């Protein structure tokens, strides 16, 4: 038995798949930033948004990006994507998330 939608002359399977992909893309993972990362360089209420970078072997999570100015890891309560804006409070920088040449998310300064 055919699905009712497939019976419709207007139905386009490719368009439907694209719509599903688009919906999936728009749903971002949320993160609860309750853990104490030990970062003590900003007022207490903001400390959960930052953690120390552990060097080149450090793996960044989907909600993290490295500040190119002061090398602190910035954390967000949501998955980060290219075009997002984040703030590095320890060095007072406004940053934009971009996709780097290696395919990883990076941050560039937006003065």
């Amino acid at each position: 038995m055919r699905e009712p939608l497939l019976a419709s002359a207007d139905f386009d399977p490719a368009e439907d798949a694209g719509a599903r992909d688009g919906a999936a893309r728009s749903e971002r993972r949320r993160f609860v930033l309750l853990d104490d990362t030990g970062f003590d360089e900003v007022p207490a209420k903001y400390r959960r948004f930052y953690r120390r970078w552990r060097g080149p072997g450090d793996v960044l999570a989907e909600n993290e990006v490295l500040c190119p100015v002061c090398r602190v890891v910035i954390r967000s309560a949501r998955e980060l994507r290219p075009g997002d804006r984040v703030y590095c409070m320890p060095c007072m920088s406004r940053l934009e998330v971009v996709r780097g040449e290696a395919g990883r998310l990076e941050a560039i300064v937006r003065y």
Partner: protein
Amino acid sequence: MTLEAGELHERDHEGFLSEVHSFEFWFQSVEGYLHGHPHGVSPSTPFPELAPDRRAALVATLSTYCVGELTALEGASGMIGFAPNRATKIFLATQVADEARHLEVLLHRLAELGVEDAEAGFEARANRHLMAFRERLLAYVVEKDWLAALFAQNVILEAMEFAAFQTHLRTADARTAELLGGVLKDERRHIGFGENALGRHLASHPDDRRRLREVRQSLEPLVFATFEDAALQVGLPAAERPEIARLYLDSVARLGLGT
């Protein structure tokens, strides 16, 4: 204005800058890592025994750091008088407090190492290239040349200090490493302030890049000579020496002041 934490990154830029340039932000930030650390060191951190040659090298290195901190103290305090707006004056006032603390804890560490009258002798023991850099920077301050002074102090000098301290604390004794770790946390603010303030200015005054490139070219021989001497003094392997200047070179490139 102090804002609630919420999702910090959704704030507007103006509100963010207003908060991070405030004295209140500074006070709450430094409280986190300075409280309970007289002279920048935890009371439980032991006093290490240093071999005579290692002690002599450390005294020379700390004396050079004292010159850097004294320069920044005098530079930042002088710049308050001709800074372009209130927020910048307030930020510089917090930097003056930081630099004064740095000088004080470094002199205290020299005294711990047995240096008599550390304050009277540190300039004579310091790196001659940094002494020459100091003269140039303070001349910009006397001339009230805001752009050159900000670039020389908060981009070049602060990047030199940040790189030197970060490298040194990897091999330093426990008390010196802890002291330098606390100073580094302050330097993050100073570096970021300098690059961002210059970046915002250059976005609306792109022609000023030519002037800052001239400043860069005139100071760079002193900068690299200081980096080289600092790398030798803290025993950095030759292969790692180019890394010590990377922070400075990256900042210059982001500002569009590269060659």
